């Protein structure tokens, strides 16, 4: 209780940071250990439980069906999932902000075209769209990042447009126009810096969603392909052995939880209500 009330260490920040730290430790700390061997197979250790010993080696988190050290697999998978999600969020962020600002600043047919495309995308469930696209375009890591990015720009686009609509009428933009500033000057110098904080917040919320989406696709076999591990794929692989060694599915689930919950708790601290308002009030879209 005292922790929750403390201003210096609010519970959500402490919890979120701890979860994120645990995730980062698994992702980037484990490869430094001597036991790190994500591809080394030892069939004698197949489906070993956590802390099992086989010969010289200790399998701290057990082993998968092919006898690969599970801690090492998790670490690699964590980095794969993180990398895909970060790049996908980056693609959607850049695309959404650019399209949204252009739509909101220029208005007219450009706006109608961009926002129409966005509405169209929103009308189709994202997972369905992703499954269909993955089926058509195949599944490689690059394609996965691109598809995840292309299907999630609308959130940024809508907010960026809404903010651009109000910013373009602000006097500092009008003053720049009378001084001879071009549209691109105004978009770069005035609109972009003023929407950036809100876009960063949206990105941090979207990030969790994209992690889960990536895991879902990989779980369905439409994302990362073996032998490369991914968290969703590992949950799927563990399904067959739930009765023998449930940890194989539980552990990647926990890693996903740590990443998503950790990033959400921490990012919530930076929403405008919690940060002291500036210009970056989030208008309703």
């Amino acid at each position, binding site marked *: 209780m005292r922790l929750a009330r403390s201003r210096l260490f609010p519970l959500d920040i402490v919890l979120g940071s701890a979860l994120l730290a645990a995730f980062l430790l698994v992702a980037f700390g484990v490869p430094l250990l001597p036991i790190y061997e994500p591809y080394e197979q030892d069939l004698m250790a197949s489906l070993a439980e956590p802390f099992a010993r086989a010969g010289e080696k200790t399998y701290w988190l057990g082993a998968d069906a092919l006898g690969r050290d599970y801690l090492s697999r998790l670490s690699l998978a964590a980095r794969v999932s993180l990398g895909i999600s970060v790049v996908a969020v980056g693609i959607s962020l850049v695309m959404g902000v650019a399209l949204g600002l252009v739509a909101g600043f220029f208005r007219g047919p450009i706006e109608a075209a961009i926002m129409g495309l966005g509405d169209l995308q929103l009308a189709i469930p994202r997972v369905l769209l992703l499954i269909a696209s993955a089926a058509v375009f195949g599944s490689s890591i690059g394609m996965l990042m691109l598809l995840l990015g292309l299907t999630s720009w609308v959130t940024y686009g809508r907010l960026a447009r809404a903010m651009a609509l109000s910013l373009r009428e602000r*006097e*500092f933009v009008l003053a*720049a126009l009378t*001084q*001879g500033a071009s549209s691109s000057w105004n978009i770069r110098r005035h609109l972009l*810096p*003023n929407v950036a904080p809100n876009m960063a917040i949206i990105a941090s919320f979207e990030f969790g969603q994209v992690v889960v989406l990536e895991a879902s696709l990989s779980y369905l076999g439409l994302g990362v392909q073996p032998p490369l591990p991914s968290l969703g794929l590992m949950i799927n692989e563990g399904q067959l052995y739930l009765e023998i060694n449930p940890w194989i599915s539980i552990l990647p689930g926990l890693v996903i939880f740590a990443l998503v919950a950790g990033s959400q708790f921490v990012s919530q601290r930076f929403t405008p209500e919690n940060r002291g308002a500036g*210009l970056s009030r989030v208008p309703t879209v």
Partner: protein
Amino acid sequence: MTLRAQPAAQPAPPLLAVENLVTTFRVRRAAWRSDELRAVNDVSFEIQRGRTLGLVGESGCGKSTLGRTILALTPAASGKVRFEGVDLLALSGARRRDYSRRIQVVFQDPNASLDPRFTAHDVIAEPLRIHDAYDHGRVEELMRGVGLSPSVQDLKPAQFSGGQRQRIAIARALALSPDMLILDEAVSALDVSIQAQVINLLKELQARQTLSYLFISHNLGVVRHIADDVAVMYLGRIVEIGPTHRVFSQPRHPYTRSLLSAVPAADPRRKASRDRIVLQGDPPNPLNPPEGCAFRTRCYRARPECRSASPPLAAAPFDAGHRVACLFPHEDQSR
């Protein structure tokens, strides 16, 4: 005789001459129907170099739209905006930009007119950067010119007071060495004591740099103090225009008379001797203005003739330079 028949010298064209300017907005009433709103209706006036025209009128009468149209922030429907004789509305692209940077603007709300993410230095430097003419010393010079110490140049707008922010906005407007400033309610958001300081600064700058001002305000006292000439707007039209002292001492239009009678007097004895003209009703819907004189629905002089046609802005007899749009400009002179 021959000498006098010739004009002594070709008079220089006014710095800014607005001719029959009309600005319209389309107001959508329903999906299939939209009405035209004439926010600025057939407005003409001139401003000489180094002079100030005060533009007064109640909220929604089109004062600010007129300013924005001159600045090309709002497109004009028809008419001309001549700057040194060149019609700005007929120009396009780079030539337009060359001219329009010579008319700059200061807005009402200094909070909204400065980008909250810029420092004072960046705000003032922006016009220079737009024209690839950035010079650190010039920014500091501009700051000193409006009475700000260059030592505060790295502060954000939120760290300044309202008056200081307006000084920053004025410095920005002066950065490109314009010939004219449009001051759109530039002191209305400030405290009275700060208003006086900013107005004195504006007068000082005008004297130093031969600036012309279009001073848009609803505050008659301030306009009387700063303007050489005054134009009174009602429902998109100028109803009276003339030298400030003439308009204030001998208002001809009933609307001007009622506006002036509403100005509080500092001297209670004077106040008691004056008649307060209280207008009836609200301004008419600008989407559906009355036929004939737009003011007749609220006018105490209104007669049946007022219904027939909108009175032109005509010179008042015996009073060149003072023009009024009223069919009966000489009634109630005793009031």
